[in-house]
Each structure stands twice: as structure tokens, then as C-alpha cells.
């Protein structure tokens, strides 16, 4: 199913997938931020009927003809999705699902109809689904570049508009920006990118390449420009890695799925280990905060006890502190830490009182919360 028809140099394959990865990553950033991750999935499925109609109309398998057809049906699908969710009570998710499946089903119907005609060469469905990165020629790379560069320039020109619409739609509207036009423009760019990549990487990979790099990049930064570039780099990198990995062995492993798995691995690592937003990092922060909180609460308990029993310089025992703590098992460790920091001193064996430094420390901590400790 995936055998390549010819074996071109790896160079053009790598260049092509890298270029496509970069383009998808950058534009996917906007799709993900606008909660339209699955728009790409729907549009790429919806290109099928256009491809087949173009094939019927021009009677050729030339890339440009197929791309034109795909672009037209992709655009119609994108407009249908925007229109259905805007003008009826049907929500966006259903609009996406309906458009995706109906366009694809229609394409399927056309495809089977075409295939029954004796003169038609079979346009492979498997190819549409998984693409044929392995057959990328220099010509295809140039065609890809011819689409990629205008797209990236458009993104650069409308950067501010896209940013505004991504993060604060109503503000953009109140400033008088043509929000609907920007929506349409972004969807058109998405269609362009999908059409450019469809022949190479296929439908399923297309949806992954639009979502995954952006999600991974989101983990590492809070800045849109860095996110877009980083997503592009992740996309390009997994494109290269996928192309190289799938061509290492003698057996022909399909390039598309390898790229998807590689980018998924990047996402997985980013979600786990990215600083500030990674799950491991968040857990560590939670653990550290809870320890500091415990320390403060033990000190505050000691201070309150000492105040209530004032006059006498009597300390309080560990058992007492445990009794009033919400996390008794952590008390001894906190007390030792407090002793080390010099915030608490041991007056008698096993009896502790806060030092003046301890009282100061706590006052300072609570003063900026607006409720100083009495």
C-alpha cells in the first residue's frame, strides 16, 4: 500500500517535509489558540471531493489541477463550518463533524463512481489518507515553497490582527477590526497549507501536524511570536526526523505515521517536563509550596501558643503541635527545619518556642497579605 513508485534522493523528501512541518506548525499555532484545532482535520478530509472533481474536469493528475480542486472544496467546507455555527443553533463541534463526514462521504461517492468508469485511472484513496512523502520530487518542493512563502508573508503582515483575534475577540471588535474578515483569512491560510501538504503527508498527518507542534510550543513560552516560531521548528524537526527514520531501514515504513509519532513524542515530553507549565514541574511546585506552607503553619501555631500562655517561658511539645496540625506527620520535619533556620529554639528537652526572628519572619510573610498577625 505504501510502496514508493520511484526512489528519489532523500534530500528533497527531507526539505519538503521540513518546509511543510514549519508551515503547519506556524499556522497551527493560531488554530490551536483559537480553539479550532480540529478545523484542519475537517478541512483536510473535505478536500477529497474537490480533488476528484478536478481530476474529472481537467482529466489530469497534475499537482496544480488537483490542488486547485482541493483548495476550492476546502474553502467551501471552511465557510460551511463558519456559517453553520454562526447562523444556526448547531454548535461548532457538530458543524465540524457534519462537514468533515459529509464532504468526505461525497468524495467517496465520486471516487467510487469515477473508478467504475473504464477510462479513469484509479486515484488512490490510501494516498489521499497517508500521503506519499517518499515520492517528493524537487518540483514538489518548489511548489511547496511557492505556497509557503506567500502564506508566511501574509502571517507576518497581519500579525497584529491575528494576535488580537486570538486573544481578545471582543476587544478587537470594539476597536473596529474586521473580525469576521480575519476569521475568513485565517481559514483560507489554513486551507492553503492543507492543500499544499495533502499530497505529501495525507489527511491524518495533516491534522496532527497542525495541532501537535503548537501544543508542544505552548508549553515552553507565553509569547505568541516565540510560540509560532518554536511550533514551526518542532514541526520542521519532526518532519526531518520522520523522513530520515522511515528511510533508514530497507523496508518501506510509511513516512507520515513516523512523523506523527515523532511529533507526539515531542508533545508528550513538553507536557511533562516543560518549565512552568509541565506536569512534573507543576507537581514539584505544588510539593514545594505545601512544604513552605506547612513550615509557616507550624511556626504560626507555636507563636499563637506562646502568646496564649504568655508570661511563662514555657515551650510546647511536638505532640501538642501535631495535635493541632492538619498534617501531623510532617510536623517533626518542619520543626527541625525551623530550628535550623533559627526561627525556633528549644527551651527544654522536646519543648519549643519561637524566637523573635521567627515572629518577625511570620509578620513579614503575612503583612503583605493585608492581615498582620496579632
Amino acid at each position, binding site marked *: *500500500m*505504501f510502496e514508493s513508485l520511484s526512489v528519489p534522493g532523500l534530500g528533497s523528501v527531507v526539505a519538503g517535509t521540513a518546509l511543510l512541518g514549519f508551515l503547519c506548525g506556524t499556522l497551527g499555532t493560531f488554530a490551536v489558540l483559537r*480553539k*479550532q*484545532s*480540529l478545523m*484542519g*482535520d475537517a478541512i483536510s*478530509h473535505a478536500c477529497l471531493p474537490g480533488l476528484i472533481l478536478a481530476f474529472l474536469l481537467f482529466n489530469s493528475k497534475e499537482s496544480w489541477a488537483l490542488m486547485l480542486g482541493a483548495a476550492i472544496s476546502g474553502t467551501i467546507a471552511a465557510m460551511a463550518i463558519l456559517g453553520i455555527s454562526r*447562523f*444556526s*443553533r*448547531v*454548535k461548532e*463541534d*457538530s458543524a*465540524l*463533524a*457534519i462537514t*468533515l*463526514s*459529509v*464532504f*468526505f*462521504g*461525497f*468524495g*467517496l*461517492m*465520486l*471516487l*467510487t*463512481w469515477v473508478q*467504475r468508469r473504464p477510462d479513469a485511472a484509479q486515484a488512490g*484513496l*490510501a494516498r489521499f*489518507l497517508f500521503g506519499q512523502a517518499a515520492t517528493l520530487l524537487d518540483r514538489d518542493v518548489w511548489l511547496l515553497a511557492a505556497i509557503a512563502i506567500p502564506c508566511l508573508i501574509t502571517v507576518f503582515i497581519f500579525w497584529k490582527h491575528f494576535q488580537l483575534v486570538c486573544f481578545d475577540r471582543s476587544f478587537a471588535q470594539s476597536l473596529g477590526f474586521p473580525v469576521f474578515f480575519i476569521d475568513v483569512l485565517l481559514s483560507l491560510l489554513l486551507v492553503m497549507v492543507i492543500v499544499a501538504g495533502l499530497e505529501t503527508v495525507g489527511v*491524518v*498527518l495533516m*491534522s*496532527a501536524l497542525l*495541532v*501537535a507542534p503548537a*501544543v508542544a510550543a*505552548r*508549553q515552553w513560552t507565553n509569547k505568541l511570536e516565540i510560540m509560532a516560531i518554536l511550533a514551526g521548528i518542532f514541526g520542521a524537526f519532526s518532519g526531518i526526523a520522520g523522513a530520515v527514520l522511515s528511510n533508514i531501514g530497507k523496508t*518501506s*515504513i*510509511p513516512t*507520515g*505515521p*513516523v512523523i*506523527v*509519532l515523532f511529533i*507526539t513524542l515531542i*508533545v508528550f515530553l513538553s*507536557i511533562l517536563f516543560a518549565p512552568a*507549565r*509541565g*506536569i512534573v514541574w507543576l507537581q514539584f511546585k505544588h510539593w514545594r509550596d505545601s512544604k513552605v506552607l506547612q513550615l509557616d503553619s507550624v511556626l504560626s501555631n507555636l507563636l499563637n501558643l506562646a502568646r496564649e500562655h504568655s508570661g511563662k517561658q514555657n515551650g510546647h511539645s511536638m505532640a501538642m503541635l501535631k495535635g493541632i496540625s492538619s498534617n501531623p506527620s510532617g510536623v517533626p520535619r518542619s520543626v527541625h527545619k525551623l530550628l535550623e533556620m533559627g526561627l525556633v529554639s528549644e527551651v527544654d528537652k522536646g519543648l519549643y518556642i519561637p524566637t523573635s526572628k521567627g515572629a518577625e519572619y511570620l509578620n513579614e510573610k503575612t503583612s503583605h497579605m493585608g492581615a498582620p498577625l496579632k
Partner: protein
Amino acid sequence: MTQAQLEIQLLAMATAVACSLCGVFLVLRRMSLLSDAISHTVLIGIVIAFFLTGDMTSPWLLVGATTAGVFTVLLVEGLQKTGVVREDAAIGLVFPALFSIAVLLISIYSKNVHLDMDAVLVGKIALTPLPSRRLEFGGYDFGPKSLALMIAIIIVNIGFIILFFKELKVSTFDPAFSKAIGFNPYWIHLGLVLSVSTTAVASFDAVGSILVVALMAAPAATAYLFTDKLSIMLVWSCIIGMLCAVLGYWLAHFLDASIAGSMATVAGILFGLTFFFAPERGLFSVWQRAKIRDRKFKLALLLVHLTHHEGTIRELEECNIESLHLHLRWDEYETRSVAFEAVESFCASQENKVLKLTPKGRIIALESLQIGTNLS
């Protein structure tokens, strides 16, 4: 119509009904895209079950596929719960990854096994009447196996809906309230996911993965444009699903094309027609209502304008038909037509090109003003 054709149509209708029933809740709970994810990832369940059993017809394949479907949903929800990925992105991450693993497994390990990708996408509904696919018991022929399976799924789905109708309703329309009255909507959610997975897997065998999505989303969304009542929506959804099945079959028959594709196409056409022409929520009737409202408002405004200037010195100027549009700041043509309507409906009369209120018009104008003051 031969018996084979009848059986194919029956299977198509049964599949449509099973899918439409689940679809209603998917559409209402904004989970439609989970059906897309599930229909992709059942492949990995089938592949793994196939590697374990080595048999393409084993019932374990169905079990594997259903498990994969539920696993997909749990994975999507797990990712969402971490708080770093939103739902749409979580779906977009999970299903391509699982699907890719499945495709890689197929291409690496089962070169000699024919796991036909086209059959996965398009389904094998046309093969339904074949002798090898019949359910025979004690020498009697009970029709195609997949039809029996589909009917069983319909019964389970209907049972689930009837048994938990109240729970489904409250957790769909007001999850917070259902939690407040001490009922955890998560169990219903899980039940629904299980039923969607089972239905998707069973239908997938007959009509292919894409049509599952079409049959779950399109009839339910179409029914959603017809009614506000859950029970009626369920019935409508099933009827529309069956209509898709029958019309789709005959379309495919005449074009000699894929049955699944034709059914999806018909589902899309039906949705499109409803979207534009539905009696109350269709785009055209919404526009028409807006137009009628606009016209009514303009008529009232004209009458109010006339009361305002009635008997004043400027009446000749302000209420003159020739210059009315300048004072109301409307389009000239439209002003004429509104004025004409006012005369036609005996709200005003025309004397020397000046509009005069009739008693009826005065009442309407005063009433409109009254409504205005009540509102403010």
C-alpha cells in the same frame, strides 16, 4: 427489489437508527467530534486484537475495538484534566497518534495479511447478503449476521436511553444541577461513551469509519433544528437517519457508487435543506421573521411620526409623502412602500400628498408608544 437489496437497506437503516440514537446526545453535549476520534482509533483495537488472536473474523476484534474507543475518550479526558491542553487540541493529539501506531503496526508486521484500508473506510455493506455472512441457526436462515448485531445494538441503546432517560436529560442540559441533586453525571457520561464506542464499532464493520461520523452527527443535528423536545428529537433523528439510509442506497444504486458515501451525501443534503428551510429555525424563516419584524416596527415608527406632527405648522412639510424619507432618514423607495402599507391597512389616509392619521392608526401609534414607556 430483490431480497439482497432489501437486506442491504435494512442493515443501512438499522445502522442509521443505532447511530442517530447516540448522535442526539453527542450533538447536545457538544461531543460530536469524539465520534470522529473513536472511529479512527478503533483501528488500533482491531489491529492489536488481530495480532493476539490471528483471526480476522474473531469476535475479540469487536471487543478490542470497543476498548480502544473507550480508551481514546479516557485519554482525551485525561489530557484535558491536566489543564495544559484544551479539549479540541486533546482530540487532535490523541487520534492521529493512535491511528499512526495502528498504521505502522500494519505496515511493519502484517505485510502478508490483507487488512484492507478501503474496507475500513468504506465498509462492506454491499457484501451483506453473501452466504458466508449469514446467521444460521438450526438450519434456519436468520438473515445477515451484521443485521442481527445491529438490531442487538439498537435494543441496547434504546434500553439505555429508556432506563436512564431522566438522568441523561438532566446531565445533558444541566450538569451542575445534576451534581447538586447528588447524582454524578460522570457515570452517565461513561455509559454514553461505552454505547457510542460499541455502536461505532458495529457500524464501522458495515458502513466504514467516516459514515459513522456522518450518521451520528448529521441526522441528530438536523433533528435539532426541528424541535426543542428531547424525546421528539430522538424520534426525528431516527426517521432522518432511516431516510438517509434508503435514499442513499438508491442514489448509490443509480450511480453505481459507494453506498456509505451516498448515505453521507444524502445526510448532508438533508441537513443543508433543513438548515435553510426548516419551519422555525431555518435560515430563511429566521430572515423572513426579521424582515416582518422590521416592517412592523417601521410602520409603527411612521405612525408615531405622524402623531408627533399632527396639527402642527410643520405637518405639511413633515408628513408630506414626497419628503417623508428625508425626515425619517430612510431609503426613499422603502418609505414609499411603508406609507403605502399604512394607507392600505387603513392606518393613515392621503390628502394632497400629506399623510393623515386615521383613528385606527392613532390607536396603533399610541399603543406602540405605550409599549415603549413600559419597557423603559
